[in-house]
């Protein structure tokens, strides 16, 4: 089933024209250029290595199904609320067509995949934002699915892991999307009162209304190396300040250096660190 989800994902890599000759029989590119170091990488090798550049360790973005596959034990993931489909509460200009092309491109119904799975045998409720679905933005459905996942966690006493990758609130849903910041944060507050573990993992990019709500409310906050993490867009900030910002501004490393996150975890260690966290919370001290 997870493999099926994978297959729907065709467009996770942008081919640089001229540098990535296409295989004649397949549409998938065989080669891709690392945007960071310029190394030409064999796609199949890149995927085996969790999409981390073998030369410079640049972390390519993962789609939500890829993230699930890289995180949970094989054949344990069961999707929840997969029937919930994006809505257009304001009849916002051109939003419906934007939604249908996002749906076609990603094979998802909105910008999040939630479900139950296991990590090293420990059951966990997991949610992953899809960066390719309207920039992983949070509207009604993202807010609702996170809330349902958290409610399930309160009932079942299972820990929650949320992977964020988002441009922020979904503008096209207006105040409905803004209020999802309040709704998800309030849901996390209830989870907190119930004494249940919540691990938030910030991946590239986590910005705006998602960062300013559930993503920064984890008991433990992890981030992938090099991830863009910031409240306001870098361009907005540069315009506001009318000055150039340091090169590491709004990165995982910047957040770590300012004490805003617990750890930066390379992708190939993420599963193991999450398993360790789950294990350390599996019994009371």
């Amino acid at each position, binding site marked *: 089933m997870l493999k099926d989800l994978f297959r729907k994902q065709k467009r996770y890599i942008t081919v640089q024209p001229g540098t990535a000759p296409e295989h004649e029989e397949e549409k998938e590119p065989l080669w891709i250029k690392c945007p960071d170091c310029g190394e030409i990488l064999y796609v199949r090798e890149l995927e085996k290595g969790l999409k981390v550049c073998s030369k410079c360790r640049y972390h390519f973005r993962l789609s939500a199904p890829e993230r699930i596959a890289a995180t949970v034990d094989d054949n344990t993931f069961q999707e929840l609320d997969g029937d919930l489909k994006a809505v257009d509460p304001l009849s916002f200009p051109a939003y419906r067509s934007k939604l249908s092309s996002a749906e076609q491109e990603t094979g998802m119904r909105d910008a999040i995949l939630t479900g139950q799975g296991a990590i090293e045998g420990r059951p966990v409720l997991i949610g992953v934002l899809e960066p390719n679905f309207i920039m992983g933005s949070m509207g009604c459905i993202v807010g609702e699915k996170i*809330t349902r996942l958290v409610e399930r966690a309160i009932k079942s006493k299972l820990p929650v892991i949320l992977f964020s990758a988002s441009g922020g609130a979904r503008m096209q849903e207006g105040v409905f999307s803004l209020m999802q910041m309040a709704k998800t944060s309030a849901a996390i507050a209830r989870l907190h009162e119930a004494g249940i573990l919540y691990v938030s993992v910030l991946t590239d990019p986590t910005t705006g209304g998602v960062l300013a709500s559930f993503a920064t409310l984890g008991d433990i906050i992890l981030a992938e190396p090099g991830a863009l993490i910031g409240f306001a867009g870098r361009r907005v900030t540069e315009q506001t300040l009318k000055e150039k910002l340091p090169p590491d501004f709004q990165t995982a490393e910047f957040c770590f250096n300012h004490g805003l996150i617990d750890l930066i975890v390379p992708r190939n260690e993420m599963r193991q660190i999450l398993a360790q966290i789950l294990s350390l919370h599996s019994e009371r001290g």
Partner: protein
Amino acid sequence: MPNVILDFEKPLLELENRIAELKQYAGDKGIDLAAEINILENRLRELKKEIYENLTPWQRTQLARHPERPNALDYFNLLFTDFLPLCGDRCYGDDPALVGGIARFEGVPVTVIGHVKGHNTKENLARNFGMPNPEGFRKALRLVQQAEKFQRPVISLVDTPGAYSGAGAEERGQAWAIANNLFAFSRLKTPIIVIITGEGGSGGALALGVGDVLLMLENSIFSVISPEGCATILWKDSQRAPEAASALKLTASELLSLGLIDGVIPEPLGGAHRDPKGTADNIRAEIRQRLQELRQIDAEQLVAARWSRLRRICGF
């Protein structure tokens, strides 16, 4: 008359000027122009109604941002007695863009918080245009937690273009500060009344916006993004902000019919800045009634009801 006249108000100004001229002329020359003046004054009244009762979302946005619109400090003076400002986040600094303290509302001690914009450039520079840094949000959090301890209701007045997007704000965890407020306000065991008085700009507004009752002044706005920002993203043209303002459904009456707010507080004709005292009277009546209702509910129930209100938004 206010010093700043908006574009759509110019016909009113012209008419007002003509009436003044005629009166002056009649006085100087000793001619009786009462009939003419009367006709013009009637037209002025009609034109005022026509303009202010058919405001477009963009025109309301302009009223919401009017530099002379009363700010939180103006309302604190008009609505409360014994206002004592309390400052600082106990960690980094005091944020002049967000003020708070303790006061009495009709004799009852309350905690008050609010964004403060300036009425002119000098004030705006001092207040950072009402855009808080993380320490502002953290001060607000400190004050509402104090309100919980002493069982004081919280009155929160919202009026900000948004949270400040500066390098320092990022370093000090702007997003963390906002999220922590959403988290904590949602479980606070004391009544919270939120009133959007001007501009309810995105996360920076919401950081003071979680409560038991969410009200908006008639000409205030509440939006996930500014109309200019929205137009830039949608059409790469900030000049199309008026269109974006309509698309975003950011006015009080639209948000009330969408079920996203609990009530609209009327403003005197022409907007709050033409009659701050009259506006404050309307706000006072609303606070009085809401407080009376909320103070009868016990804290646990209050928090449960606050959660169900949020839970219902896009609940399927």
